[in-house]
C-alpha cells in the first residue's frame, strides 16, 4: 500500500466508525421519540427500540472489529 495512504487510513477508518456510531445513536433517538410519542402502543415501541438498538450494535461491533483489524495489519 502507498505509504501516503497508509498514514491517513487509520484516522479515516476511525472517523468513519465514530461518524457511523453518532449517526446511529442520533437517528435512534429521533425514531424512539416518534415511536413513543405517536405509536400509541408502548410495547411495540419498546420492541422496536430493542430490535433497532440490537442490530445497530451488532453492525457497529463488526465495524469496530474490522477497524481494529485493519489498523493492526497496517
Amino acid at each position, binding site marked *: 500500500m502507498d505509504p501516503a495512504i497508509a498514514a491517513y487510513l487509520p484516522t479515516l477508518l476511525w472517523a468513519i466508525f465514530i461518524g457511523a456510531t453518532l449517526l446511529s445513536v442520533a437517528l435512534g433517538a429521533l425514531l424512539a421519540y416518534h*415511536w413513543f410519542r405517536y405509536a400509541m402502543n408502548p410495547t411495540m415501541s419498546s420492541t422496536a427500540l430493542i430490535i433497532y438498538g440490537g442490530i445497530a450494535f451488532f*453492525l457497529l461491533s463488526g465495524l469496530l472489529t474490522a477497524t481494529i483489524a485493519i489498523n493492526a495489519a497496517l
Partner: protein
Amino acid sequence: MNIFFSQDKVARTQTSNGVNEIKLLPEEKIILKLRKHWVILARDTIGTILLAFFPFLLLAITQIVLPSTLYFEGYLAYMAFATSLWLLILWLALAVIWTDYYLDLWIVTDKRIVSVDQVSLFNRKVTTLSHDRIQEITVKEENFVQAFFKYGTLDIETASPTDGDATMEGIPRPESVRATILHQMGK
C-alpha cells in the same frame, strides 16, 4: 383474522395512554384502527433488502472474474469494514421506512374519521373528517396484486371546506371499511 383489522387491537388502543394524543370527544368510541396492508411495507422495503446482498454478490463476482485482486494483506478486514458500514446504512434506512409505515394510521370512531399521515420524520399530517360532512366514499382496487391481497385505496370526499378530503392507499379490505363507515354515518 387480519391483524390490521382486528377488534382486539381497537380495544387495546382505547385503553392505552397514547390514545389521548388523538383526543377523543366525550362518549366517542373507536370502531376501527387501520394500518396500511403489509404488502405496502414489503413494496417499500424490498429494494433496500435486496441491496443488502450487494457486497456478497460483488465479492462472489470478484472471486470468479478477478480472483488475484482479492488476496492482498488484510483483505478480509477491509471487506468486513465495507460490508458492516453498508449494512448499517441500509438498516438505518429500513428503520425510517418502517417508522413511516407504522405511524400512518386511520382511526374510525362513531363520530368521525381521523387520518394520520406520517409524511416523513417531523412531517406529520392529522386530518379529521366528521361523519355528517362526508359526501362520498370511493373504493379503488386497481390491479391484480391489490385484488389478490384484498387491499385498495379509499377516497373520502366531504362537503366541508375546512375538513377537506382524505385518501388512504393500501387499506386492507376497503369495501368492508367503507361499509363500516357508511353504517356509522347512518346511525
